Each structure stands twice: as structure tokens, then as C-alpha cells.
């Protein structure tokens, strides 16, 4: 028995889930790519999520509200793709979102819905308050939605039941899965239909780069804005979102980079003291365990604790912080230029938040990396802003297919033979 959380709460057997998805995929009034009925629903949802009362309670739901505004979504689906004459849904999409980043459940789902798919989302049994709130709003909003929307979208949860995962995997045309390497490996063992494909979103880590020279030339207000943006990138999901920065790389000559870094950390400390992120005892201990461990392995040269909410780790040359060390633990590294950082970038790296670099410099850096890591270079403060392109995939396109529609080629006009006329010497 599965627990259904959307479109309404109830228990339902696996067969019914599968039958519902197949029926939605074949229904004559099924959703299409960029369907108005979906745009209506998502727009209504956007309004609900941006209600001040809700935003106060769960600020992390507000960006989702903005993301779902009709104007932008409609613009995306209207735009034509050079290679395709028409985009159509993929069919049935099975989503396995991360357990505790509440909003990551909604973004890929919304894009897949916009592509016209029937979607089934497996919800973690360990929900969060924000997830519950989001599902409540979704259930409320879908009552007014077109029946074709209601019939084709499902959020379910079930325990560790291989039979269910296997059946949903076999039934879908696209499987979107997030998780650590082990989770992805385990999920891959459940076979897909021959024509179906996987879109894995494995564990990633992120960093940010700041130009020391630009920092030194930035006024108070500018510095404050950067530090606030950084704070949100880092602390919003306890620094554990893939896009949250772990290392702050200062780019510039040694002395300047060190001075700028020290100034940044002081400002961050002041902001942390003001915002008071929730750091419980076990998190404080976790940070000690992790950072002392970095010292044991000589990855860290020094570890400074500024209360329990902020730990600053001076990394040994050639090191980046690669894994979460407890909320508010940041590696500090200095590089003379971006090129010096490039050899340390691996496929594991996802987002670079940046401050103080020209577009051309960032493009040249990305070109140099040539896909060996880093899919996003975004301003500090926008690391967590979900985008249509994520982990290097354009999700709207991945969730749809291209159709070629061509008419018979018109034969080239020939001059009547008579005009040319037989000529002879």
C-alpha cells in the first residue's frame, strides 16, 4: 500500500498508481507541452506560495513562488528550439527527489509538468515542516485545476519497498533521481523500459570565488550585500544543499587575498551573530569532529571557531573542502588567479558563486574546465536559486522530446526544355 499525498491524501495500492499513470498518459485530453491548463495551475500555486503569511513561516518557499510565475514559464514553452519543429511530453516521469530539501521536490516536477508529463514523485517518509506546508498548498490549489492536471500528477510515499520502486521504474519513460552515489547505484539496479532513460543528479559540492582586488575596491554597502547573499547561500539549508558553498576562494596576490578574506570572515561573523542560525549541540560536536579530522589529515592548516555557528578552516595549499563538515564550516583558500584554481576542479563540483569577475573571465574559465566540473557560475547570493538548467541539464528539454515535422521537398523549378531548345552547331 502506498500513501498518496497529492492530489489528495489517501492510501492506494500499487496497481492503482500504475493504472492511473498509464491512463493519464493515454487520455485523449492529456496534457501537452506548455499546456495552458498546467500554466494556470502553476500560476495559481505561485500566488498561494507568495502569500505573506506563508512566506513569513517558510521563506524558502518564496523563491519557488517566483519561479512558477506564468509570464516566464509561458515564455520558455513558446520559444522554439532550432532543431525541433515541435516539443512533446516524454510520457510518465518518476521523480526521486532529495529527502530534506523541501523545495527541490517541486522545481523538477513543475518543469516536467510544464513539459506535459504524467509525474509520480516519491516523497521521503521523513518529511520536513516546509514539505508538509508545500503539499498542503498544492492539494488546496489543485482543487481548482483542470481534471487533466489532477489525474496525471501523483506524490506518494512508501517504505523501503523494492517492489514499488521496481514497478514505477519499469513503467516510466524518464527517471529523475537525486542522491548520494550509493543511492544512485542502488536505484540503477531497478531496470527501466528499453526506451526510457535516467537523469541522475548525484551528490555535488560547491564553492565560491571572490576577487580580492574587487573586494578591496567595494564600499561598505556592497560588501554587506555580498556577505548577506553568501549567508543565504550557505545557511539556508544548513549548508548541506549541493549548491551551498563549502570553500571560499580568494583570487589575488597573497597578502591582498588574505586581508580580504579576513575582512569577509569578520563581516560574516557579525551577520551570523545577528541572524542566529539554529545550531544545536550535535551540530556543534559534528563540526569539531569534522574539522579536527581535517587537521589530522593535514587538509587544514588552522581551524578557528567563532562560536558554534561559524568555523573557518584555512586549507592547506592544493585543497578544497569537498564534503559537508557541519553547518557553517567554511574552507578558505587563496589563488593568484582563476587558472590556478582550475586543476582542483572535478566533476563533483556543481556551482561557483562569484563576486568581482567579468563575464568574459568566467566564460574563459568555464571553457578551460571543458565540462570537467562546474555547471553553474552565478553571483554570490544566487547559488540556491533553482534554474531550468540544473547540473548541466536543461530540464524542460530533458523532460520532453523533439518531433520533426517536414513537408515533402518542393522540386526545384525547371525551365521548360523548349526554352533552352535544341541547339546545334
Amino acid at each position, binding site marked *: 500500500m502506498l500513501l498518496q499525498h497529492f492530489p489528495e491524501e489517501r492510501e492506494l495500492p500499487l496497481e492503482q498508481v500504475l493504472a492511473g499513470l498509464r491512463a493519464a498518459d493515454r487520455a485523449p485530453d492529456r496534457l501537452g507541452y506548455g499546456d495552458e491548463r498546467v500554466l494556470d495551475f502553476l500560476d495559481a500555486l505561485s500566488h498561494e506560495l507568495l502569500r505573506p503569511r506563508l512566506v513569513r513561516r517558510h521563506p524558502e518557499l518564496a523563491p519557488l513562488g517566483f519561479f512558477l510565475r506564468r509570464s516566464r514559464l509561458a515564455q520558455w514553452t513558446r520559444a522554439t528550439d532550432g532543431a525541433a519543429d515541435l516539443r512533446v511530453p516524454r510520457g510518465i516521469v518518476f521523480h526521486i*527527489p*532529495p529527502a530534506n530539501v523541501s523545495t527541490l521536490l517541486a522545481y523538477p516536477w513543475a518543469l516536467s509538468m510544464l513539459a506535459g508529463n504524467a509525474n509520480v514523485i516519491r516523497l521521503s517518509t521523513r518529511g520536513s515542516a516546509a514539505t508538509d506546508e508545500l503539499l498542503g498548498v498544492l492539494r488546496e490549489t489543485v482543487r481548482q485545476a483542470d481534471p487533466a492536471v489532477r489525474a496525471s500528477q501523483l506524490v506518494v510515499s512508501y517504505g523501503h519497498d523494492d517492489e514499488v520502486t521496481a514497478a514505477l521504474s519499469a513503467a516510466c519513460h524518464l527517471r529523475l533521481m537525486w542522491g548520494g552515489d550509493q543511492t544512485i547505484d542502488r536505484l540503477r539496479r531497478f531496470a527501466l523500459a528499453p526506451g526510457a532513460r535516467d537523469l541522475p543528479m548525484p551528490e555535488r559540492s560547491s564553492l565560491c570565488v571572490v576577487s580580492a582586488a574587487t573586494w578591496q575596491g567595494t564600499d561598505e554597502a556592497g560588501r554587506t550585500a555580498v556577505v548577506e547573499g553568501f549567508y543565504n547561500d550557505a545557511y539556508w539549508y544548513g549548508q548541506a544543499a549541493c549548491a551551498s558553498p563549502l570553500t571560499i576562494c580568494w583570487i589575488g596576490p597573497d597578502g591582498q587575498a588574505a586581508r580580504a578574506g579576513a575582512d569577509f570572515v569578520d563581516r560574516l561573523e557579525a551577520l551570523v551573530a545577528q541572524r542566529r542560525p539554529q545550531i544545536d549541540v*550535535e*551540530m556543534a*560536536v559534528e563540526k569539531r569532529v569534522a574539522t*579536527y*579530522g581535517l587537521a*589530522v589529515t593535514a587538509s587544514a592548516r588552522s581551524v578557528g571557531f567563532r562560536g558554534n555557528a561559524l568555523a573557518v578552516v584555512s586549507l592547506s595549499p592544493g585543497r578544497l573542502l569537498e564534503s559537508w563538515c557541519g553547518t557553517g564550516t567554511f574552507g578558505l583558500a587563496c589563488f593568484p588567479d582563476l587558472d590556478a584554481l582550475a586543476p582542483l576542479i572535478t566533476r563533483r563540483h556543481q556551482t561557483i558563486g562569484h563576486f568581482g569577475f567579468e563575464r568574459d573571465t568566467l566564460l574563459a574559465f568555464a571553457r578551460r574546465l571543458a565540462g570537467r566540473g562546474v555547471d553553474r557560475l552565478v553571483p554570490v547570493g544566487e547559488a540556491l536559486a533553482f534554474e531550468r538548467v540544473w547540473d548541466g541539464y536543461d530540464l524542460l528539454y530533458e523532460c520532453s522530446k523533439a518531433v520533426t515535422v517536414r513537408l515533402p521537398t518542393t522540386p526545384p523549378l525547371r525551365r521548360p526544355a523548349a526554352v533552352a531548345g535544341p541547339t546545334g552547331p
Partner: protein
Amino acid sequence: MTPDPRSGCFTLAQADREAVLFPALRELTAHHYRHCAGYARILDATGGWSDSGRGHRNLGDLPWLPVRLFKNHVLKSIPDEEVFTVVTSSGTTGQPSRVHLDRQAAAAQQAALASVLRTAIGPRRLPMLIVDSGATVARAATVSARRAGVLGMMAYGRDYTFLLDADGELDRPAARAFLAAHGRAPFLVFGFTFLVWSALAAFAAEEDLDLSQGVLVHTGGWKKLADLAVDNDEFRRHFARFGLRRIHNFYGMAEQIGTVFLEGTRMPGLYCPDFADVVIRDPDTWREAAVGTPGLIQVVSTLPRSYPGHSLLTEDLGVVHGVDDGDWPGKRFSILGRLPRAEARGCSDAVGG
């Protein structure tokens, strides 16, 4: 308070204890700093060892390691060829801790453990009722903490009787026979706290046993009993009905092997042997918490010389009830529970198969 000559290694008042322990622990810190490169890197990175210890003025100043570090890293102050034995903990999750002992350290920890237990049990081996199954001990392939604990305690008893049969069921005839043979003179009862409660408590009530000559030594934590809403007071009250008042819970960990904190029988709480102490730390400021204020327990002991385990921050919460005011001098404290593991709330944390 004059030390009770029978108190063995529980004699030092707090001020005397600190006067002895502080220089010894500072010397140990310097020793491990010299002999364990990983430990030295930690102290260098965290600034925890300023001016080679000259900056440290009292026990609470000395650097500590989080106990879980021994799960993730090998930290030892002896060369590989001198490793005599590696003690592993029974971590409930993930990797066990590993603690390296040379021959000398292995002997020292056994002697220390004996000196503490003799305080509870007395100098002679007593007939021993083991609240466990003989199968736990016999299963040679398993290296469980339970097996190690029972085997270790058997060194302090004789004429063993196991209270549980191979299936974990109460062996009533064996228990009756034991009490008939040994119940009128001092005898030892040992078991893990939860088993003692689940097996012996009910049995004692059913048969209205006379346990007045018994000394109960138990360990293993209160988590399972807390689920049953049984605390130490209730535990002691229950057994007191059957005359069993000499009850000693003890607290210790693999990462500081040989050092155990022993429960007294009159003033409630755990007491520190002369070679050890506890510091309760406020987890916000990391400073020593006042008497009566709960915090994280730091355990210090002069025993660990082969690995840097002489000053450890545990993941247990505790509180000091009083100082020099109980059965034995020094701090009198209780364990309040274990910290949960911090949970990463990230994208990597997916639902799984």
C-alpha cells in the same frame, strides 16, 4: 573528608585531585604532541596547545578531542611494532573506534579497571551470577562489546551461573540453584543494564528473591530503559525491595579503556577514580558548566599513554550534582543521555531504494 581506607582508588578530594591530575595531564598532552603527528596537527591547527602548555593553568584549560575522532582516524603515540592490542568499540552505527595499546598500556588499563571494581566488589573473587547467556560468551567468532564485557567481568568472579539459557530465556532452575548454594554469603551479579532489568527484575518479583547478600554491577546505558520510563531511582527502588542495595552502575568507553566511573550506593551518582575526572562543558561557550548545570561530558584520565585519549569530549550529556559531598570525594555526576547524530539536510540525502 578523610579518605576511607577501604575506598581503594576513590580517595582524592577535588582540589587534591586537580593538583595531581593537572600536571600529569599536561605532561601527557606534551607526550602525545611529540609522539602522535595527527594529534600535534590538531593542536597546532586549533591553537589548543599554546606555548607548549605553559599557557594552560588548570584542568579545564587543557585541549580535548571529540571521542568520535577515533572512529575516523588512527591516532596513536606508539610505533606500529609496539602495538600489543587494538581495542575496538561497539559503535551502534558505522565504523567502530580503534584504540591502540602497547603491552604496558594494556597492563595499566587492566590494573586500573581492577582497582575500581575491587572498590565495589571487594578484594576476593565472589560467586557470580551473570545476567546473560552462556552463548554470548561461547560464540567465539563474535567480538561484541557484550561478550568482551562479560568476559572481562568474569575475572572478578568464580562459580559462574548464567541467568539466561541459549535462547535468551530465563533459566529458573539454574538461578534457584545459584541462590540456594551462594545466596547467604556475598555474591556478585553482573549484566548489562537493560538485561538486568528485563530478566532479573521480573524474576526477583515473581519469586520474591532474597538478594540481600548480592553486589550488582551493571553497565551499558539507560536508553532502552528510558523508553520504558525506568530511571536509575526506579531501578534501585525495585531491587531494594529484595534486599539488593549494593548496586553499582558504571560508565566508561572503549576510547578511554580501563577508566570507569563508578556509582556509589548512598549519595546517588557516578564517582571518579583518583586517576580520572569529568568536566561538564556548556556546549555554547565550551566553558566548564556550574554544578547542577547540564552539559557535554569531558572525561580525563592519566591512563592513555599509548594513544591521545587522555582528554576526550564525549557525546553524552551529564550533570555534576556535587563536589566532595558523597560516598567518595571528588565530583558526583550523572549521565543524562546521548546526543543524537547531526543530520545533514542536503540534496545528497535522498530517499534511497
